[in-house]
């Protein structure tokens, strides 16, 4: 067992024994190869269940609103950003959280592996390599190749807010072009973009796994469920699906922390980030703001400065 | 409903009137457009229909008329959402869709030769009107023993079907007791909550059925009164509300345990409810 995991166990055990928290929200081994699953540890005896590795792909910040009382949470960089936004939006109190921050090298996207090996029968994680036996054959992957796309362009691998730290700090390589994927999409013609999104939206089955996996989507009544006005009727054609995805991306403007939980949750492999990344880039460009990086910096759409672009308000 | 139980028949709105003083409940009177539709719509007290406000949606409502009142159907609608609001606003002469009759009905066969106590609260009186009207009809009255109706509302303005109530007051074939929660100027009737009035009025459960419909709080406090009088659970009948869509027991929405309220209900005896999980 790695040193990091032992340290997490020790910290969790101490917190529960001291009564500092009622529950530790973390990951345990799942029932499928290369899949971790969220777990809620409430007694010191159970902390041994906790794991930490590249299979821990959910954003656990999603659970802090539903768990009352004091909780510890295992959080990667992106997860801590989500926690910051939730705090800024008064959805969770800082004093109720004990953040077990972990530096993260990225998580595996199982779909990338399954695209080549078929359903995964067994796998072994070793130094930067993953050996997989699948139903359609075996293959050895370099971790870098099957890292989730979010992690490929991650700029916050280290927690931005934490009460304890685990794991060696990760250096972010200098990205030549931040948001290169968005730039590439922007450079496509309108027709090309339309064709791309038509194709992606045709895949969506409106299971709302993306919305429910997102820590930022916590409305009591989501606009898709609203009856008056009835924004969406439940049809699954590309037009309605697009309305849902675009609507959600806009509702996340200035709030999305780009953790990729939505993409990994999607059973259909829809490219959801294509839209939210664009909105995130626009927020950075227009408002010089990135969600959840510092507690002191409120969400972009919650504050106003005279330097904000105002073409729509004031005749320039 | 024939071949396709999802297709509504169309009916004409002949009356759309305010039923309660707070304007929260309106009563729609619908007319069959042809004899065939009426013949296909044979119903019994306790059943409901799904009413379509075209352009808005469909919702289930208890049928307030009795089959002894031919040519029309009456529904009382509380304004709670999209469809009910549209029905509140609908003009006389307009068209609505109706699918039905659906659900089971009050066990009137079992009531034959027995006394029946009908206990209703507030808005829940719709299908109870149907039941009382049916039993009072000269063709049926002889089948039943004493008929007592205990009907309470928060204040006089919130009582439904005031015209019928006035008629029943004068009718020797039915013992009507209306009550309101707190004294109000101009009200000379009883004052008291329905459970308390039930205790005063109902003397025995021998050879008697109790039919209880009302808000959860009213039912919660009326049941112990009935149990004290030794009404067995088989002779306490109620009608449940549930969110419904298809009304056919197919879409899976309205179940309590293995029973679908739209198809196996909405009328249940307390004995049947005791077998079901407390999830309603």
């Amino acid at each position: 067992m790695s040193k990091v995991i032992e340290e997490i166990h020790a910290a969790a055990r101490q917190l529960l024994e001291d009564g500092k928290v009622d529950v530790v929200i973390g990951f345990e081994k799942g029932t499928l190869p290369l899949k971790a699953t969220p777990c809620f540890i409430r007694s010191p005896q159970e902390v041994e269940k906790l794991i930490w590795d590249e299979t821990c792909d959910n954003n656990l910040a999603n659970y802090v609103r539903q768990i009352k009382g004091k909780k510890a949470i295992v959080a990667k960089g992106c997860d801590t950003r989500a926690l910051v936004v939730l705090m800024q939006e008064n959805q969770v109190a800082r004093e109720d959280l004990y953040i077990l921050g972990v530096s993260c090298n990225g998580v595996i996207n199982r779909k990338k592996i399954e695209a080549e090996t078929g359903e995964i029968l067994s796998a072994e994680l070793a130094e930067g390599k993953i050996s997989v036996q699948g139903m359609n054959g075996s293959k050895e992957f370099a971790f870098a190749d099957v890292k989730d796309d979010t992690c490929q362009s991650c700029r916050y691998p280290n927690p931005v807010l934490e009460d304890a730290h685990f794991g060696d700090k990760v250096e972010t390589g200098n990205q030549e072009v931040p948001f290169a994927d968005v730039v590439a999409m922007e450079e496509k013609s309108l027709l090309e973009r339309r064709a791309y999104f038509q194709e992606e939206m045709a895949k969506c089955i409106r299971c709302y796994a993306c919305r429910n996996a997102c820590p930022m989507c916590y409305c009591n009544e989501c606009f898709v469920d609203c009856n008056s006005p009835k924004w969406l009727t439940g049809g699954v054609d590309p037009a309605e699906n697009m309305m849902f995805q675009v609507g959600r991306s806009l509702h996340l403007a200035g709030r999305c922390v780009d953790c990729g939980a939505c993409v990994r949750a999607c059973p259909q492999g829809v490219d959801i980030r294509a839209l939210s990344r664009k909105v995130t880039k626009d927020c950075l460009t227009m408002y010089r703001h990135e969600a959840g990086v510092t507690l002191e910096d409120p969400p972009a759409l919650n504050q106003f400065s005279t330097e904000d672009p105002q073409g729509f308000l004031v005749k320039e | 409903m024939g071949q396709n139980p999802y297709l509504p028949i169309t009916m004409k709105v002949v009356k759309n009137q305010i039923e309660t003083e707070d304007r929260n409940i309106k009563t729609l009177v619908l007319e069959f457009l042809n004899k065939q539709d009426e013949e296909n719509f044979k119903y019994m007290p306790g059943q409901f229909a799904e009413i379509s406000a075209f352009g808005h949606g469909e919702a289930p409502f208890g049928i307030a008329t009795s089959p002894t009142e031919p040519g029309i159907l009456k529904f009382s609608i509380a304004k709670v959402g999209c469809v009910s609001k549209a029905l509140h606003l609908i003009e006389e002469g307009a068209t609505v869709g109706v699918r039905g009759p659906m659900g089971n009905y009050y066990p009137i066969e079992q009531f034959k030769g027995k006394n029946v106590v009908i206990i209703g609260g507030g808005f829940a009186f719709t299908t109870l009107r149907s039941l009382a009207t049916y039993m009072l009809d000269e063709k049926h009255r002889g089948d039943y023993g004493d008929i007592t109706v205990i009907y309470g509302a928060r204040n006089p303005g919130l009582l439904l079907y005031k015209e019928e109530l006035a008629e029943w007051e004068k009718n020797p074939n039915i013992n009507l007791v209306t009550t309101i929660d707190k004294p109000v100027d101009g009200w000379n009737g009883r004052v008291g909550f329905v459970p308390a009035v039930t205790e005063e009025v109902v003397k025995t459960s021998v050879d008697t059925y109790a039919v209880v419909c009302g808000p959860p709080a009213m039912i919660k406090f009326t049941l112990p009164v009935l149990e004290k009088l030794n009404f067995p659970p088989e002779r306490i009948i109620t009608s449940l509300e549930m969110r419904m869509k298809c009304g056919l027991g197919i879409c899976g929405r309205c179940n309590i345990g293995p029973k679908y309220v739209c198809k196996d209900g909405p009328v249940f005896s307390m004995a049947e409810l005791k077998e079901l999980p407390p999830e309603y």
Partner: protein
Amino acid sequence: MKISKDKWGQVFDALASDYQMLAPKEDKGEVNFKRVNCFSEVKQGYLNTKLPAKALFFPQHETLFTYQKEGQGITVKNALKVEKTIAFGVRPCDARAFLLLDKVFNNDQYRDPYYCDRRDTTLVIGLACSQVAPTCFCSQMGLSPVSTAGTDLLFIDLGEAYAVEAVTEKGKEFVAKLQGLEELNAEDQVKLETLKNLQTSSSVDISALTEKLDSMFDHPYWDSLHEKCLGCNACTFSCPTCHCFDITEEFRKTEGNRVRSWDSCMAPLFTKHGSGHNPREDKKARWRQRMMHKFNYFVHNNGDIACVGCGRCLKACPVNMDLRQVIDAVNKAELVVK
């Protein structure tokens, strides 16, 4: 009897001019039932379709009827259109699910024509599995990777040919008219024997499940089960036996559609009354409903467990809720003696 894949391809292509042919087709790495025009479009060598075959008779979104406003009157028009169809390549798990759905859409009081008419005019040609995944558990659910239940005829892949087994009257009629059938030779027989012995190996045990659940409505197990569940629709939409749907309206000026679309009991607002009251207000109640409906209520109503062991739900779940684990936990749960 068997038919070579070449000959079957010819038959298939000829049938396509008379029937709507629905078969598994690959699109950007995902295999799903789609309309195909020739056998070459049909995917070979796959485990199962991503979305279940229930979509053949119960599409995710369909128009029930259309209506027109004319003055104060309204005319309603049935939108159901059925064409004679052949569904090829339905796996035994999905086919068995049809038999379960048949009981829902044609219940003791009502017949749903949208599902039933499609079902009646479709010939279901099942395709037995040649391999099973570790997430499959159909054998533990009372069927097998080669069972015929729910199909009209079953094809078993022998490599160069399909063994053909007629199951229903409809299937027998079809086989009687099938050109190119040959006898199985000794080698075929051996292959067939091996394939027919294919089973899923899983420790799922449903023998006492329904009865156990009879006493478990108030059990504390439900308190912890639901915690990590996201409450999305991924499991229900992937499930071959889930049948919940919503009915809504699409309306423009003077005309509109009444439509139905898949819904899920896992959705928070599924049972919310107009009054605001919600009998299943929390995730705990909804997960309990899911288990009770599939493994208890459905048994009491229809005599069968509403699960065919296809494993799609646990593969689709973003947080790895695993039905097999839940079944196991229910079996092991200690009943609280009152």
